[in-house]
Every structure is written in structure tokens, then in C-alpha cells.
């Protein structure tokens, strides 16, 4: 590359620290930085907290050639914060020609073992590019994101080997100006753990967390049951 390509990573998780979205997006960002991209990372919970912050985010989007949105699946689609950011970006880019707009890559992870539960969220991201003139560079979807639980992928090791390979292939493609390759999509979509194991360990974790808060025997409470 002759000039440094500006890259913006938008983290759509509302968690203040230790989000799986940050683990995934950060890994891809770092691989691209190694290849000469100039990265900036924004957390949407901060980027939208005031009009001033929002203006800064919009400036960053405008000056980027590649935008990566990494986010968790919330109620079958994107978290409200991310939708709000996309509404603002769409307003900002209204009426502009496509050549001025960046490429968009999305990485979504969900708390269900089946990665295909993210389908609708990625379809919405793609639709966003069609309506705004961004270039759709593709999306990656991961199931059982809780198994990574916000740890750096290097610390997850064997469990994340397909995820790591997927992001490496994605980085190579993006550097070459290509969209996310199918092989990378397939690797990311592979189950991190068997479905039965995820359910068993997930259930155990909810119970342990509830016990820690003294709420184990209230897990099934119905506080809004009509009288």
C-alpha cells in the first residue's frame, strides 16, 4: 500500500469492558494495522453520549475508507445504540455519491449456539449499505459468543482457532480490496462448542451467577404477573 488506509472500528456492545464484540473486532483491526491500515476504535456507548461525541463519530466515519461494526445480537437484531448510530450516519451521508462512501464489514455474535440466528442482523447491515451507498464488504456471524466472553482471542487458544483463521482470511481479503471470502464466513459460522455442551454449561453459569447474587431460588419469578 502506498498510503495508509483509514480504518474505523465501531464496537456496538453496551458493555463497558470485556465484550466479545471487542475481542473479535479488535483482532481484525490489529491484523489490518499490521498491514499498514491506520485504525481508530470507537465504543458506541461513548460515541453517542452527547452531540459533540456524535459529531466526532460522524467525522470519523466520513474520513474512513473501511468501517468495521462488531456487535452482539440483541432480540434478533442490532442493539438500539447501533441502529441509532446507523440512522445518524444515513442522515449524514444522504444525497452523497457512492464513491465517497467507505466499505463496511460487520461481525455479529449471539448468545445462542446457532450462528444462523444472526442472519437477520446481517441482512439489516447489508440493507443499510444499499440505502446509504456504502460498499458492502460482507459479514461474519458467530454463535455461542459467550464462550469467548470478552477474552482476547489469543487467550482463548484452541476454542477460537476457526474464529482466528476466519479473521486472518478476512484481513487478507480486505487488504487486497476484496470482500469477506466465503471460507472466512464458513469458519466463523462453525460451532465453537457442541450445542448440548453450550446449553449445559450456559445453564450452569446462569445458576452460578444467580447464586452469587442470592437469587438462585428466584430465577423463575414473575414480578409482573397480572393479579
Amino acid at each position, binding site marked *: 500500500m502506498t498510503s495508509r488506509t483509514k480504518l474505523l472500528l465501531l464496537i456496538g456492545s453496551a458493555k463497558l469492558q470485556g465484550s466479545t464484540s471487542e475481542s473479535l473486532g479488535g483482532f481484525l483491526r490489529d491484523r489490518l494495522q499490521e498491514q499498514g491500515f491506520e485504525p481508530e476504535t470507537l465504543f458506541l456507548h461513548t460515541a453517542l453520549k452527547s452531540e459533540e461525541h456524535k459529531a466526532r463519530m460522524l467525522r470519523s466515519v466520513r474520513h474512513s475508507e473501511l468501517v468495521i461494526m462488531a456487535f452482539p445480537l440483541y432480540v*434478533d437484531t442490532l*442493539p438500539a445504540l447501533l*441502529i*441509532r448510530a*446507523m440512522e445518524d450516519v444515513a442522515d449524514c451521508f444522504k444525497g452523497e455519491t457512492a464513491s465517497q462512501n467507505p466499505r463496511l464489514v460487520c461481525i455479529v455474535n449471539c448468545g445462542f449456539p446457532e450462528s444462523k440466528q444472526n442472519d437477520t442482523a446481517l441482512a439489516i447491515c447489508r440493507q443499510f449499505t444499499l440505502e446509504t451507498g456504502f460498499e458492502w464488504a460482507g459479514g461474519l456471524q458467530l454463535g455461542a459468543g459467550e464462550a469467548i466472553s470478552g477474552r482476547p482471542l489469543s487467550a482463548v487458544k484452541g476454542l477460537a482457532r476457526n474464529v482466528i483463521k476466519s479473521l486472518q482470511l478476512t484481513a487478507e481479503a480486505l487488504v487486497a480490496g476484496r470482500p469477506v471470502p466465503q471460507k472466512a464466513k464458513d469458519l466463523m459460522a462453525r460451532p465453537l462448542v457442541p450445542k448440548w455442551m453450550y446449553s449445559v454449561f450456559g445453564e450452569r453459569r*446462569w445458576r452460578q451467577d444467580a447464586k452469587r447474587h442470592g437469587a438462585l431460588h*428466584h*430465577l*423463575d419469578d414473575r414480578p*409482573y404477573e397480572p393479579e
Partner: protein
Amino acid sequence: MKALILNGAKTRDIEVDRFQEVLLEELKGLQWDADAVRLRELTVTHCVGCFECWIKTPGICRFKDAGPWIAQSFIQSDLAVFVTPVTFGGYSSELKKALDRAICLISPHFIKINGEVHHQARYQRYPRLLVFGLREHPCGESDAIFRKLVGRNALNLHAPAHHAALVQSSLDRNGFQQRIQASLNTLEGSP
């Protein structure tokens, strides 16, 4: 029979507000005990993904804004109606903000439905779900995404019946009434 309308319009979405007003009148005319909420007029903090509503105070969100009232009103209704501008094939951020806070209405326990893992119902009964998406013109891809999203929501919110209706925002009052009637009839005929 109680109906709750959640209106996800932003201030500029005048046609969505106009549709919601016609919808409220129609439901009242059909003897529903109906309420409509313009979500932009309430303070609803975005969900922070802490899961305290599952593991610390099961069924209740930690934020004491309008979120808990919306969740309570939703679960105590017989019919929940979402009204939203179609936004990239999905819901507006205003509607989604309220919906994200509704996970307190389901349980952390897992259950398999049609071979997929989902969360179990917390309550014994859930409202039927009717969702109106307003947009200027029909758009095949966007409309298909919207319908699929409503179907997924119905599954995860354990709605006993659901219907997604896409409405052209430029229709007049009579046009809105016809779309509302047709949608209510379709929902009525659902299993």
C-alpha cells in the same frame, strides 16, 4: 381485552404518528382497552447487557426509568402492537431501545424450539404481536427482512400469534383504516 401500542417514530416521522392515531381510534372502536405510547417522549435508557434482570433481580431491570413500566404493560396486554418506520429493513432505534429492555420478560433457561436453542418463557401467557412497518414505497428486500424479523421476535417473545404488516406511509386515513382492519383480521385468523 388490553392492547398496548408502542410507537417508535422520531419527531420527523409525522406519517407514523398519524398512522398510530388512526390505529388507536380503530382499536378503541373495536372495544379494545387500548393505550399508545410515543417512545421518544419517555426516558428509556439503552440496555447495557448486564443480565441483572435474569441473575440478580429476576424479571426486573435495574434501571428505574420508563423501561420497567413498558415491560410490565407489554406482558399484561393481550395484544402488543409495534409501529415503526422501516429502518434498513428493521425497527427504528426508538422502538428497539424499548424492546431491548424487554428481555426481563423471558427466562435465562434454555429451550429448543424447532431444533434451535432459545430462552424459555418466564410467564404463562404472552400477548399476540402485531407489527406495522411504515415506508414510502414497497421494497422487496427490505420488506422481506422486516417480515422475517417480526417472525423471529414472535418466536423469542413467545407470542401465540403474530403478523407483520407493511404500510405505505402516504396512504390517507381511509387507506390506513383498511390496512389496520386487514391486519387485525389476519391476526384473528392465526392459530
